[in-house]
């Protein structure tokens, strides 16, 4: 919300404070000032102002109130005029092109001089013709043969608003010669209004906060400027009746009448304030409703009373206003001239002829105030904020009124709003307020009473604040307080709906005490409570250990978006694969089609990233750990964690002395996985596996105790083609929950023997189809504890060995823990190994 300082000063004395000081007070108390726009006042005096400040200062010598006594034609240009102007000291002839001075051209000496904002030679103002805000200094120049050195200013030139259609016509009582900065210099604070501060979405609300924060007096506007009691025969209650169908939706409805208004522009000071607050001045009557809403927070609506009377063709002039929910499909043309089709959750204000306004959101076109309006029926009502929020969203009608109503306006404010607005209307239009107000208030909100003790304050805030002090602070915000028996009874003022009852009310009031006491003044303490039992998070710790291991193995961790699309994940399958009906967790409101479901595959995420980086590096090795999302009808989805790895490119990067290296293959990835499994102390086996994403001959499962922890392999050539890869890609996907569940809590280590080993190689010829791990397993089993290690160092095929055969060469290390082994000991073991290999696997020793 935009708040002109000049307006705030109607209600609280602030002129001794700089705009930044006021901004700081508000910001610290929960009303964050996002921007300060200076229009005339001095810029902040200190460097460390702490706020975004922009705008222009009006030089007191060079920019003053002046009066134009005649508007003469320019001798050489039709579109320019020459004004006879007096700046309080000297007469000037000032050249202007302002269209709003045209009507006065050639009229000779004006009956009433026009008061204007006058910038003298050397004054710094904004260039009115430039896009945006460009500072310029007025210099002497000749324009079409006439000398010009000064200017009559528009709002844009003075940094008040974007307005540059004409020059400012100040109000008649503006004192000629007075520095303009003294007359109307201002600063506008842009304040963020949080939902709990809805009561402060108006000038009076913020002024009240400032008065409370500084301990100053709040000068509330008087509401006694009308004849509110209806004691005349022709009083309003004899003319107007109000019927409320549903008090839950419409707890209060009030009406007032003002007669014989003259529709015309508002005084300049009103227009300036409205524009500074971000609203467009329209006419004195509409401006009065907006001005009052900005001033005290009650949105109002003005009806043309005579149109209402005419609609029901009732010569007696009596009108029945009713509020009810709309019939489904009922129509109303709102004052933006859009015919709106309504639903039964929308609330309507009606007369006997039908709907006249979409309650709290926008009035109807037919009954709105026009140039010809003479008598005004003014509505101030209270609405259910949830209902208004829904209706405003449904019809896409955000407005200053619906903004306030949808955050909650206390029904008590309605009457103040009505009176205040009638007052401004009478001031600005010459209208006469009809005696009496019609007020239907079927559902006043309950007023809670909150009880606070000094102990409560100490317990919540950690600081001793005597009840008397708390009372004084709360009374600044117009809480009614009373201390009895060491208890402070607190009743919120009749414009607040944010204070609850019981223990919630206590918290609500505690926040107010803390805000006014000052968060800064609450001492910092460390918790006196004992440390709670420390539980740890084994799942996360294990996950972190895995991340460290993978990084230690040379892989780059990535973290990707959880949102994807089925067609993106289907790239994991060869084209034309039959995609069985895979259910996804779908978003109801996706930001983009390619982000419309939650991923089911982590592998897909990793491959997408590898693809994007494929041309940036000779080799890539990446992993991601994270959840996938499996729908679970009627319940929250399952979110199992997965680990996915992909590697591609060169095994070794080329260097100045090593040129092109070989590319990674299945066994590079397997080596990584073996190291990983070894580090996790998982005694896994690797078995051939099938998976649609992988080459059928180059895919394996990682198996522990008969169940698979994950699969890996080389991407299926047809899957590879779905991506823009440069080299073959090897990838793996693991069920992380299964992997982490299998990690043993502890593990024993083998002792280290002090005795020398016997080293020996053996090579055996076996059938090509025999998996190598069976040979190794048999060697290990037969070698027993004397066989310290078995290392396959060569796989060899040749014509000499024969087709369908391969030679496997192992380096064996024998070692004992008890003593030095002899060659004879080793030979014994070796012959047993060879014998079993021959008998059980059909192996032949290669000589």
């Amino acid at each position, binding site marked *: 919300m935009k708040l002109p300082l000049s307006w705030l000063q109607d209600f609280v004395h602030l002129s001794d404070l700089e705009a930044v000081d006021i901004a700081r007070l508000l910001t610290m108390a929960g009303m964050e000032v996002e921007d300060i726009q200076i229009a005339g006042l001095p810029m902040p005096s200190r460097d460390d102002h702490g706020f975004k400040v922009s705008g222009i200062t009006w030089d007191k010598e060079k920019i003053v109130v002046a009066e134009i006594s005649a508007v003469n034609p320019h001798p050489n240009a039709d579109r320019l005029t020459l004004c006879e102007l007096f700046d309080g000291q000297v007469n000037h002839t000032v050249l202007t092109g302002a269209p709003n001075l045209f009507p006065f051209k050639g009229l000779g000496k004006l009956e009433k001089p026009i008061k204007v904002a006058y910038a003298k030679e050397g004054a710094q103002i904004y260039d009115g013709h430039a896009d945006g805000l460009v500072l310029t200094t007025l210099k002497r120049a000749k324009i079409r043969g006439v000398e010009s050195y000064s200017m009559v200013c528009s709002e844009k030139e003075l940094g008040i608003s974007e307005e540059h259609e004409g020059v400012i016509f100040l109000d008649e009582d503006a004192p000629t010669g007075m520095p303009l900065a003294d007359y109307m210099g201002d600063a506008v604070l842009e304040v963020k209004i949080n939902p709990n501060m809805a009561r402060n979405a108006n000038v009076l609300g913020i002024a009240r906060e400032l008065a409370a924060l500084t301990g100053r007096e709040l000068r509330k506007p008087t509401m006694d400027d009308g004849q509110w009691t209806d004691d005349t025969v022709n009083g309003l209650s004899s003319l107007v009746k109000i019927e409320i169908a549903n008090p839950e939706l419409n707890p209060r409805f009030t009406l007032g009448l003002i007669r014989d208004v003259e529709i015309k522009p508002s005084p300049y000071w009103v227009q300036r304030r409205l524009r500074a607050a971000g609203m467009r001045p329209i006419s004195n009557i509409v401006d009065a409703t907006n001005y009052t809403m900005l001033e005290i927070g009650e949105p109002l609506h003005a009806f043309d009373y005579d149109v209402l009377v005419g609609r029901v063709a009732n010569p007696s002039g009596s009108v029945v206003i009713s509020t009810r929910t709309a019939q489904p499909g009922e129509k109303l043309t709102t004052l933006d001239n859009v015919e709106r089709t309504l639903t039964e959750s929308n609330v309507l204000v009606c007369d006997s002829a039908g709907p006249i306004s979409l309650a709290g959101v926008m009035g109807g076109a037919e009954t709105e105030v026009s140039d010809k309006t003479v008598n005004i029926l003014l509505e101030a009502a209270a609405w259910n904020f949830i209902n208004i929020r829904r209706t405003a969203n449904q019809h896409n009608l955000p407005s200053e009124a619906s903004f306030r109503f949808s955050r909650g306006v206390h029904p008590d404010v309605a009457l103040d709003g009505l009176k205040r607005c009638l007052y401004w209307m009478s001031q600005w239009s010459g209208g006469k307020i009809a005696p009496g107000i019609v007020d239907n208030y079927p559902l006043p909100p309950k007023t809670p009473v909150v009880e606070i003790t000094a102990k409560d304050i100490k317990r919540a805030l950690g600081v001793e604040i005597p009840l008397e002090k708390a009372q004084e602070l709360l009374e600044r915000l117009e809480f009614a307080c009373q201390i009895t028996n060491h208890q402070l009874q607190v009743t919120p003022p009749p414009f607040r709906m944010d204070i609850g009852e019981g223990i919630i009310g206590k918290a609500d009031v505690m926040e107010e005490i803390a805000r006014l006491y000052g968060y800064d003044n609450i001492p910092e303490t460390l918790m006196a409570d004992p440390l709670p039992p420390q539980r740890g998070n084994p799942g996360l710790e294990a996950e972190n250990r895995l991340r460290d291991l993978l990084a230690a193995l040379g892989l780059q961790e990535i973290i990707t978006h959880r949102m994807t699309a089925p067609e993106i994940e289907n790239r994991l399958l060869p084209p034309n694969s039959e995609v069985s009906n895979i259910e996804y967790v779908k978003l109801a409101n996706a930001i983009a089609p390619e982000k419309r479901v939650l991923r089911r595959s982590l592998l897909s995420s990793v491959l997408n990233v590898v693809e994007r980086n494929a041309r940036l590096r000779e080799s890539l*090795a990446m992993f991601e750990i994270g959840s996938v999302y499996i729908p679970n009808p009627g319940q929250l989805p399952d979110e199992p964690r997965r680990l996915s790895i992909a590697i591609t490119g060169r095994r070794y990067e080329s260097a100045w002395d090593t040129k092109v290296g070989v590319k990674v293959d299945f066994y590079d990835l397997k080596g990584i996985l073996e190291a990983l499994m070894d580090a996790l102390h998982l005694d896994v086996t690797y078995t051939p596996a099938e998976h649609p994403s992988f080459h059928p001959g180059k895919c394996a499962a990682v198996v522990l105790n008969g169940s698979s922890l994950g699969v890996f392999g080389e991407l299926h050539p047809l899957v590879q083609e779905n991506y823009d890869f440069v080299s073959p890609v090897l990838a793996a996907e693991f069920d992380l929950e299964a992997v982490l569940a299998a990690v043993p809590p502890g593990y024993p280590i083998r002792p280290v023997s002090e005795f020398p080993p016997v080293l020996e190689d053996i090579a055996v010829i076996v059938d090509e189809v025999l998996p190598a791990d069976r040979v190794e397993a048999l060697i290990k089993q037969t070698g027993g504890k004397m066989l310290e290690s078995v290392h396959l160092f060569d796989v060899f095929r040749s014509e000499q060995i024969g087709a369908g055969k391969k030679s496997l060469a192992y380096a064996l290390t024998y070692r004992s823990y008890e003593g030095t082994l002899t060659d004879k000991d080793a030979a014994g073991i070796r012959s047993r190994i060879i014998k079993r290999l021959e008998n059980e696997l059909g192996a032949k020793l290669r000589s």
Partner: protein
Amino acid sequence: MLEKLAQIEKEALESLAAVEDEAALESWRVANIGRSSPVMNVFSQMGGLSKEERPLVGQRANQVKVAIEAAFAEKAAAIKDAALQKSLTGEKLDVTLPGRAFHHGRLHPATQNLRRVLAILAEMGFQVYTSRDVESDEYNFQLLNIPPHHPAREMQDTFYIDTSATDEAEKQVLRTHTSPGQIRAMRQFSAENPDNPPPIRIALPGMCYRFEQITARSEVQFYQVEGLVVGENITLGDLKGTLSEFARRMFGRQAKTRFRADHFPFTEPSAEMDVECFVCGGSGCPVCKKSGWLEILGCGMVHPTVLQNGGYDPARYSGFAFGMGPERQLMLRHKINDIRYIWGNDIRFLEQF
């Protein structure tokens, strides 16, 4: 025989003088000291000599052998020394040529940063509590004192899951904050001992989601770390003291904090903790948008309704909670001006951490 020995010695020493490298020295050694060298042959022929000659020849042969061996050792040392000198003076690498690439893996910067935050919190006694990404409306909003149609839950902020649920509470959302974990933790712990629930001090990290367009300044997903403390004597002063201490550990002992009032539905009183801008030291710069302060975290005393919903009686227990976006700290620290880098996973970005 003695003349022959003198001849052998002379020839051996003469031929040694011509030896210049290790290979020549080795063949010289085989020829002159090896098993079938002339001097060794003399030893093997000793059996054919008379009793008188044998000691004389033996003694002389030994002298010759020792002399030849000594000459060899001297020569070997000379050659080795020459080779060393040649190597030290002759071999000169261009040390400016690049080394061979050696790859180490890295953790994602968001992981590194998250760990740093959690490590500091762990030192302060906050244990990590993790919970799910897809939440019910009830847990993400209602139990946190955000009823339906609360201004804090405008449709444009929340991703909803497409379900057939009609009951508002059962509707599913991508969590907009890690706060539903507060309810899950409180309910879990209070269920352990409903009459006397244990105190709580936890950190809740996790991915959160907001319905926004992806731009340089906004993302659809982000990490959040929340903290929750519940106990019988927890005050706003404790909140200030604990979080200022956190800021000093996070940003350095000199870090200055300020707390200003703010609003969150699930805490009351609520505050925003700012830390004095560590780029400009508080004098104002583009990073802090000239304010001198950086918004670091939102915090407040746990709302009584939230305590109640977690199974903790607000008349007996109080607590505070706070939440921060670690990516923001990451961006501040490394001057990252486009948030899309974080989940973009460009290797050129990731490799810099």
